[in-house]
């Protein structure tokens, strides 16, 4: 009687607990390795499997309407100034695999869906500093390919802007000299965490600096 009890215990161990435990271990291992890519795979899968267009505007407002206008100026009254957290444009860098939605504000929702302008800086066309943040494992991972002279394109509803990359800098997140929010000249500053492929938190930031080469100037700012 005792022997049969021990045997059944062994059977439970050998045929149930161990296989289940091993399956779990394998599942967790595969998940851990593939976690960074899962959301992308799910997104792509949903794109093909969905029977209707996904409404991405539910998590944030989008006021971006692409335009072909190439005017040198645009009146301030024609600019729909974005509220915090709204998508109002797109940002891309030729040859660098950077192509993202551009938000006003850099909290978690904008950075999960694209790149975001710090609200304490300015939006394009105002002749001031534009400070843009993006995650290193998603939308700004391509900053690792940026070279001097590359062109950053920002498209908004009120005009399209181009900026030429003038340099890069690796520094810490506390380095206030890495940007100048008081500058009176339009300058674009992009940044992300460094190293580019690290998963952990880091205090290092990779900054990309660019100067405006084209795009409408906002007029009528001072009445």
């Amino acid at each position, binding site marked *: 009687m005792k022997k049969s009890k021990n045997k059944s215990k062994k059977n439970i*161990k050998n045929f149930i*607990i*161990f296989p289940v*435990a*091993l399956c*779990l*271990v394998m599942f*967790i*291992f595969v*998940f*851990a390795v593939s*976690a*960074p890519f899962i*959301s992308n795979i799910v997104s792509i899968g949903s794109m093909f499997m969905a029977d209707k267009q996904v409404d991405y505007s539910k998590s944030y407002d989008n006021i971006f309407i692409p335009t072909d206008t190439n005017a040198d100026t645009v*009146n*301030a*009254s*024609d*600019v729909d*100034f974005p509220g915090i957290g709204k998508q109002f444009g797109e940002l891309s860098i030729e040859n660098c695999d950077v192509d993202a939605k551009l938000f006003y504000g*850099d*909290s*978690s929702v904008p*950075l*999960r869906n694209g790149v975001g302008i*710090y*609200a*304490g*800086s*300015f*939006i394009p066309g105002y002749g*001031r500093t534009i*400070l843009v*943040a*993006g*995650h*290193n*494992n*998603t939308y*700004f991972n391509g900053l690792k390919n940026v070279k001097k002279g590359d062109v950053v394109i920002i498209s908004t509803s009120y005009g399209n802007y181009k900026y030429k990359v003038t340099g890069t800098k690796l520094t810490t*997140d*506390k380095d*206030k000299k*890495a*940007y100048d*929010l*008081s500058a009176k000249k339009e300058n674009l500053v992009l*940044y*992300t*965490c460094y190293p580019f492929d*690290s*998963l*952990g*938190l*880091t205090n290092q*930031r990779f900054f990309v600096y660019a100067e405006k080469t084209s795009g409408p100037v906002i007029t*009528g*700012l*001072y*009445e």
Partner: protein
Amino acid sequence: MKKLIAIFFAAAIIAASALPVFSAGLNSSEQSVLSNMRTPANMKGNSVYVPASYVNQAESYFNTIDMTADQASKINGIIGQGRSFLEGTGKSGVRELSSSEKQTLLGYASAAAGVLKMSAAAGSDTNKVKIISKSGDTIVDDSTNVIKATGAESSVVPAVILAVTGGLFLLSGTALVLSKKKLSYEKIEK
């Protein structure tokens, strides 16, 4: 402590935000408030400025509203009172302000926000400033740095850490069970 001064000015900014009328650009009233914000407080010879990021936010916001001369006058009055208060403390920097002085400064901010049926508050460490509208919406939340944490998307990191930890835990557990099993077989063989 700079944040506490910032809340004072931010409250003044928010005063303008309650205006329902939209106007692009900066009118003379808005320009006067911005100019006032850029004027430093003289604390025992030290010039104390409002952070550029706050002035920029005000400027951006003023682009979306239309401030009247009367409203600008009130806001400038509050800014002036706050500046006079700071200069009258006899301290050489904002970090030297006592707890009660900080509360007085916060009082100015709350009073300014209260006129517009908004509330302003600072955390006990005075590093986290919040301005909340009448409807409960957070208008200003100064609890984050200029440069954000842009490492791997935050929702992925905990999941990965949890998965790896769980995996290691299960692996060690399985190894323990297997080693015990091996020992018991060896005993039987003996």
